[in-house]
């Protein structure tokens, strides 16, 4: 499959997973992510992989965790309603530190909403959707090519940091077709699963390395692993104390925060010489490109800060940029979610102008341009 293709974002996402070594997909049909499942169902049998259509999204999330413990790279894909169903088992994946990739091609919500039209209303849910205390990694592709590239990145990050990694796509990216280059397998850097370096009788499944991430044995290798969603110690045994909980959860949180520099990916343009910076992600960032060009043509000093990783949020960068500019403009297809994060980090140093849209369509680019022109005054 190496080479140039004209495919949509969902298909590109599936192909990216295959390049990354994914050989297990468990999913459930849901617009606009169904094409990811369909592509996997066609491709995996040729590659000795397994496609299984589970009975619901809860089962899909559980199955990809099981497959990961069996040693297979695994993925599922869904949209808003299914994403909500996956939340409990996403928490299990985080707590047991199970690498896998979860794709959400967002659509307009809440509830059944507009199944066939775009939304970006799940961005806060990506961060806070499961119960309890945790950190998450979420990537937002802005093109079918990125849908492929960032899926490979997601698999690598999930193995490096041992947790489920989210791809927060949207219906526009999922359904638009563009030129996509599928790289040659030997040209792609794949992060290998971190295997135990000690024999089974010395192995502790949740004893971290210096980067706070433990090595991962898989089932059937004589390591006699123990995993549980309960708060646990280094052996994987449940320990019902506040001290054990503090120790474990702090490490789960810190392993992301401490390694933020390795995780955060941004696309910046002219942010060092700007009065207004447009901060966006996903398909909104594509629409905003027109507004940024037009504003510059009108002489406005506009910079671009595109979030490729949305979580963890790039607090330091936003804080630093805020000190030098008048305003951020944050277009997103929701009622202002990431704009709240921008506002939090701007800390009053710059104004934050949200350009919301309840969903169902992309912004009229003029609205973004108007927001820029107003913000610069």
């Amino acid at each position, binding site marked *: 499959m190496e080479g140039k293709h004209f495919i949509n974002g969902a298909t590109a996402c599936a192909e990216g997973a295959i390049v990354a070594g994914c050989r297990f997909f468990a999913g459930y049909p849901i617009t606009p992510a169904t094409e990811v499942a369909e592509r996997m169902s066609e491709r995996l049998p040729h590659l000795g992989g397994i496609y299984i259509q589970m009975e619901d999204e809860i089962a899909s999330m559980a199955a990809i965790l099981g497959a990961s413990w069996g040693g297979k790279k695994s993925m599922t894909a869904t949209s808003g309603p299914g994403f909500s169903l996956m939340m409990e088992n996403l928490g299990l994946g985080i707590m047991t530190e199970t690498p896998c990739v979860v794709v959400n091609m967002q659509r307009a919500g809440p509830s059944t909403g507009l199944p066939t039209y775009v939304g970006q209303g799940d961005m806060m849910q990506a961060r806070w959707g499961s119960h309890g205390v945790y950190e998450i990694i979420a990537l937002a592709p802005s093109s079918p090519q990125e849908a492929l590239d960032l899926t490979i990145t997601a698999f690598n990050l999930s193995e490096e940091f041992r947790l489920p990694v989210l791809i927060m796509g949207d219906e526009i990216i999922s359904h638009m077709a563009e030129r996509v280059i599928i790289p040659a397998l030997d040209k792609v850097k794949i992060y290998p699963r971190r295997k135990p370096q000690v024999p089974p*009788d*010395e192995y*502790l499944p949740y004893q971290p390395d210096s980067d706070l991430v433990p090595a991962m044995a898989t089932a059937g290798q004589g390591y006699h692993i123990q995993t549980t969603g309960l708060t646990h*110690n*280094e*052996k994987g*045994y449940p*320990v*019902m*104390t506040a*001290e*054990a909980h503090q*120790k474990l959860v702090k490490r789960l949180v810190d392993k992301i925060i401490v390694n933020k520099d390795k995780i955060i990916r941004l696309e910046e343009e002219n942010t060092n010489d700007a009065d207004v910076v447009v901060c966006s992600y996903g398909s909104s960032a594509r629409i905003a490109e027109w507004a940024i060009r037009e504003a510059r043509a009108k002489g406005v000093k506009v910079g671009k800060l595109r979030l490729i990783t949305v979580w963890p949020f790039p607090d330091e960068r936003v804080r630093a940029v805020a000190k030098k500019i008048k305003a951020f403009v944050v277009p997103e297809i929701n009622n202002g979610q990431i704009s709240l994060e921008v506002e939090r980090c701007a800390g009053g140093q710059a104004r934050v102008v949200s350009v919301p849209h309840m969903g169902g369509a992309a912004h009229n680019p003029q609205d973004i341009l108007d927001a820029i022109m107003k913000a610069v005054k």
Partner: protein
Amino acid sequence: MRSEMKKLQGKPSGQKDKPGPEAGQPIIVDVPKGKLAIIKERCKSCGFCIEFCPKQVLEFSAETNAKGYRVPAVKYPDKCILCGFCSMYCPDFAIYQTKNKEK
């Protein structure tokens, strides 16, 4: 296995000090073709072994263990046929047996 267990008992967080396997030394009783063993500290007085022994070999003794459970005693060792029911039923792995090696 004991040394392995000692290593694991290192210092995982939140692990209270538990009595090691040494505290659970069995009481061993000879029976016609083998031996019965009872680890008193494990018993929770459920009564299954006593009730389901087909030869009524066992009874509750007057003795209690450290947790206050009355433990079984071998009343009629000579009646034991080593059927293995007591071993099979015990929920706490507190009673078990062995056959003597065939000569």
